[in-house]
């Protein structure tokens, strides 16, 4: 049996999405800037995708700018807003558990003279809001926080952060990386007081290489790429029309029956968690339980075994998962998120992340619950670490 439980990393392209995209490679291939019908057909399709996506987050179609993915959306939002508002203040506040596509950009800004503060999180990954209140100053120009943590599934109090920022005497722009929450947790840019929001197509059964930045009308931002202006004045270059069409279709599919999809993932998530806790000893859950956890995320450390070995044994059994183990990365350091929530390195090395999609089935979870305990048991048999040694 093949079971794909790494949907937080990337997803398969849904059949309907691929079908919607295909004509845009060969027949409807026009450049959206030109007035001839081929061009207008392409421009219409981009507008249609803007409309679909805007509706899913309570924005206006014109506020949706397509990018090459979540990484570019984050970079554009953070640097663009930071540069445009430099005179007002050079302080940026973000968190310790952001995706590298936010952290690396913030580090670059630090080198350029901006002051960046990184908020602490508690043992379940919730951002310290008191610290945020204390750190806000008249120099604060931008706050960037993720909606759902991609590793441990914590749903952050975005609405509360939005409220805190709204209460200030001067405007502080609010960027939210919603790549891990889009189509899984409701987003409302008005209610949450969000000025910029990044999403990505390939996390919701759309194609790779396309994302979007919601940018509230009137937000001062500087472009970070330069060139020929097509549909978006701030984002030059020829639009990736087939991918944008696919993104729109993927959003349409994910939000048609949003509640049903979420409920399905929740059922599978809770079944997997209950099964793991019943069948495997010496495990540690990372992230919260219940309704503050993403319906798509399950993350446990299995003590005394190393994550990459678990990952590869599951792979030999047809199951794809991710690990927080250092050994599976190029850096050989344990995950910064697990470190930030206070997980000891020797435990972090055994972290396994399972991420669900609406296409996973209950039978697949049964199969994982049959294979996983066996894999952990076998690896523990050959481990020099034993419970009594701790």
């Amino acid at each position, binding site marked *: 049996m093949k079971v794909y439980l790494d949907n937080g990393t990337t997803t398969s392209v849904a059949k309907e999405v691929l079908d919607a995209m295909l004509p845009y490679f060969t027949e409807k291939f026009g450049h959206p800037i030109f007035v001839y019908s081929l061009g207008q057909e392409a421009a219409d399709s981009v507008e249609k995708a803007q409309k679909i996506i805007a509706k899913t987050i309570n924005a206006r179609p014109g506020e949706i700018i397509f990018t090459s993915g979540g990484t570019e959306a984050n970079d554009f939002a953070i640097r663009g807003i930071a540069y445009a508002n430099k005179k007002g203040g050079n302080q940026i506040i973000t968190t310790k558990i952001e995706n590298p596509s936010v952290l690396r950009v913030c580090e670059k800004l630090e080198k350029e003279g901006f002051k960046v503060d990184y908020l602490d999180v508690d043992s379940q990954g919730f951002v310290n809001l008191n610290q945020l209140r204390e750190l806000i100053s008249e120099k604060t120009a931008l706050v960037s926080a993720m909606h759902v943590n991609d590793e441990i599934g914590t749903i952050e109090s975005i609405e509360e952060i939005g409220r805190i920022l709204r209460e200030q005497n001067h405007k502080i722009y609010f960027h939210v990386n919603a790549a891990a929450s889009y189509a899984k947790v409701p987003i409302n840019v008005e209610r949450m007081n969000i000025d910029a929001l990044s999403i990505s197509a390939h996390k919701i059964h759309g194609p790779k290489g396309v994302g979007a930045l919601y940018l509230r009308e009137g937000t001062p931002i500087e472009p970070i790429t330069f060139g020929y202006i097509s549909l978006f004045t701030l984002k030059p270059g020829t639009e990736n029309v087939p991918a944008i069409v696919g993104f729109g279709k993927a959003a349409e599919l994910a939000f048609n029956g949003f509640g049903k999809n979420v409920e399905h993932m929740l059922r599978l998530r809770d079944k997997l968690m209950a099964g793991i806790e019943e069948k495997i000893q010496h495990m540690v859950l990372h992230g919260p339980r219940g309704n503050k956890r993403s319906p798509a995320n399950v993350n446990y450390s299995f003590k*005394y*075994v*190393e994550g*990459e*070995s678990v990952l*590869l044994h599951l792979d*030999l059994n047809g199951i794809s998962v991710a690990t927080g*183990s*250092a*050994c*599976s990365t*190029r850096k*050989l350091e*344990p995950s910064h998120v697990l470190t930030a929530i206070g997980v*000891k*390195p*020797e435990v972090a*090395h055994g972290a396994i992340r399972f991420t669900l999609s609406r296409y996973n089935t209950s039978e697949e979870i049964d199969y994982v619950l049959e294979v996983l305990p066996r894999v952990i048991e076998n690896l523990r*048999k*050959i*481990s*020099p*670490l034993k419970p009594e040694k701790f």
Partner: protein
Amino acid sequence: MPVEYTERSLLKYSQQIIELFRNPKNVGEMENPTVTAIEGDPKCGDMMQMFLKVKDDKITDAKFLSFGCAANIATGSMVTEMVKGRRVDEAEKLSIKEISNKLGGLPMLKMHCAVLAHKTLRKAVQEYKRKKVEGGAPKTPT
């Protein structure tokens, strides 16, 4: 900033490594070993324990336990396999390169795993020599 390209081979495992990971050799605890040694630290993500049975300076059996990745388990298998039947001074001379070559080459980022197995072996051999100096050849309990 100079351009740095990341090679895929930094992380890619050879068929030999995958095979030894799937079916490791000489893995498990040894009863009554002549010497045992532990190297590595679980905090850093890998740790190995090795057991040797030695008779008249010749390694008659070798086993290991591993808390580590596939490369760690595969190198443990390979090292224990290579030293069985060798004299302790020969085993001590075994190089990381020899181990890596036998495994069809290790991905660059995983070289430290081979180093760990190599270190554990040397530590076990040194422990054997130390015991021998202190109180005659350590007897393998029967």
